[in-house]
């Protein structure tokens, strides 16, 4: 009796074990896509700085979030890496080392090189870097914006202003460019293209180029702007981070004009900021992240997007632009946009690998 009970128990256990084994085998043989659907696609955004107060990084985060929300089967984590560039490689490495993310997204011209180094240690990790350029790493996709076209758009507008396009334009044919710091893209692309654009209006236009030395000293930026205005400049393209506020304060006091770069800056000084060139970083971040989630993003490619692609624009829809900039200036600038749409400018990326 007892022996029979033991045998029944053994048979029950054997059946149970068989069921578990069969279930495991069946689940293990399920198609790979089904397994992927069960686990959400995981995205990390590494911000080399802080998000708040930086239009570029706000666009980056907004674009990635939109893609993740739209996909319905992905998650995103935002990591702020701070302003110390020496710590960025460590930050990226930490994220890759977790092995938790299918894609790490970031944005900065210096990051492709860092990411390329990090990816040697984590060959399974995929990266997407915007506003940077790298080709040949099979796990890295970069998206660069044609900054020659962007600077040319600003330069052409500055040329229209300094040749008498605005009520407070002076007689001197001199435009200004204030850079936070000197770097290859500034010296080899933005500065020459800005002057090239202005001289497309009038070949006699001269450029007064100044350097702030950092990205935050608005007091010194105000002094530099004053010095430029003393020498006959009436319009300044300011690419100086927080220093831009000093340029605006000076331009407001002395009836001069300011141009903005990368994002719409009209709200910083209506009537003072009269032109803004834009890069659609949010759109690029959204589209490429969505492609990655859907599995269609090609890696190992360095992509360059410009006016003809719709990613480099001039903000001609802002009410302040329409209110403060005369119609003939707007019309001439719209003609330039059309020309660049039809005939994109060559863009040699400094230090491209």
């Amino acid at each position, binding site marked *: 009796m007892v022996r029979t009970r033991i045998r029944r128990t053994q048979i029950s256990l054997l059946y149970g074990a068989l069921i578990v084994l069969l279930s495991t085998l069946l689940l293990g043989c399920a198609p790979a896509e089904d397994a992927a659907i069960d686990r959400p696609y995981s995205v990390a955004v590494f911000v080399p700085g802080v998000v*708040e*107060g930086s239009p570029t990084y706000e666009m980056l985060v907004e674009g990635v979030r939109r893609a993740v929300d739209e996909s319905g089967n992905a998650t995103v984590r935002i990591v702020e890496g701070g302003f110390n560039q020496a710590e960025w490689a460590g930050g990226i490495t930490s994220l890759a080392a977790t092995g938790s993310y299918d894609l790490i997204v970031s944005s900065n011209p210096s990051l492709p090189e860092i990411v390329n180094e990090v990816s040697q240690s984590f060959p399974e990790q995929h990266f997407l870097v915007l506003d940077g350029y790298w080709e040949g790493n099979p796990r890295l996709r970069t998206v660069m914006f044609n900054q020659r076209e962007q600077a040319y758009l600003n330069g052409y507008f500055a040329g229209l202003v300094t040749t008498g396009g605005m009520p407070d334009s002076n007689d001197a044919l001199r435009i200004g460019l204030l850079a936070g710091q*000197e770097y290859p893209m500034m010296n080899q692309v933005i500065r020459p293209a800005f002057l090239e654009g202005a001289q497309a209006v009038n070949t006699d236009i001269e450029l007064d180029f100044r*350097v702030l030395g950092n990205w935050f000293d*608005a*007091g010194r930026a105000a002094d530099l702007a004053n010095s430029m205005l003393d020498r006959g400049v009436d319009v300044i393209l300011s690419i100086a981070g927080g220093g831009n*506020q000093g340029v605006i*304060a000076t331009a407001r006091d002395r009836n001069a004009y300011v141009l903005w770069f990368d994002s719409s800056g009209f709200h910083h000084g209506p009537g003072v900021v009269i032109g803004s060139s834009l890069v659609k970083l949010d759109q690029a971040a959204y589209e490429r992240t969505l492609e990655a989630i859907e599995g269609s993003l090609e890696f190992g490619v360095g992509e360059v997007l410009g006016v003809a692609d719709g990613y480099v624009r001039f903000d001609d829809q802002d009410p302040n632009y329409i209110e403060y900039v005369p119609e003939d200036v707007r019309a001439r600038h719209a003609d330039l946009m059309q020309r660049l749409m039809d005939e994109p400018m060559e863009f040699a990326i400094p230090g491209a690998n």
Partner: protein
Amino acid sequence: MIYYAIEVMAPLLLAGLGGLFAELAGVLNIALEGMMLAGAFAAIVTASLTGSILAGMLGGLLAGLLLAYLFYFVGIRMRANIFIVGLAINLLAAGTIPFLSSAMFGTKGVLRLPNVPRMPGLFVGVETGFPLLDQILFGHSFGVYLTVPAVLLAGFVLRRTAFGLRLRSTGKNPETLRAVGLNPDRYRRAALLISGMGAGLAGSLLALRLGVYLPNVSAGRGWIALVTIYLGYKRPVGVLIAALCFALAEGVSVAAQGVLQIPGTLLLSLPYILTVVAMIVYSAMRRVAPSDA
């Protein structure tokens, strides 16, 4: 160039004069940078709330005063290490302001508030026929005209009043003060509070000139103000001369960028090279002729 140099000099001088009081009382106030930052933030917020430049400056002054009292309480009263306390206050200002800015106005970045008036210029358009003199004397922002009386007042208080004498004694020989029944800590407290007011006011000038607050608006000027105390041989007129020299070097580096074919980044190092050279000269002169400086 002279005109802008004087504008640059004003906040350096106010912070330097304040720091001089603390230094003479035997307390090196290395928190001038943080106090300037707090003064800048408070000035913009107060000016926005009241619509008054004067109220903004008062707000900046009080913010500096508040941090200075904290410095006194922890560093002097609680006997904590002065250097650690000073560094902590700099970090406190740099960390707390973005938090407050975010909580109150929803941004950690550029703080542009409505209703902030523009810093008025005084004696605009007045001419004597001597352009250099005009640049030195006329058309400056309101805050600049506070600095000359501040130098005279500091000199008078430190040299001609019993308070100044006791304050200097606190730094040189506090035992003498105790021997006559006076408490040196009271003079250290007064000196620190004066330095806080000077740094807060200096910060308010920086921000109100721009009409906005932005992170790191002081941009190291608190540290340079500290250097002017030593370069100025710990005398108010000396601090004035040191601040003016630094401002002129800054003015040259700004103006030269538009004229010389030298990389701007190199020209911008001129004020700092000058500071290092001046410190070497100062050190050499002290060795040759030791003084009370």
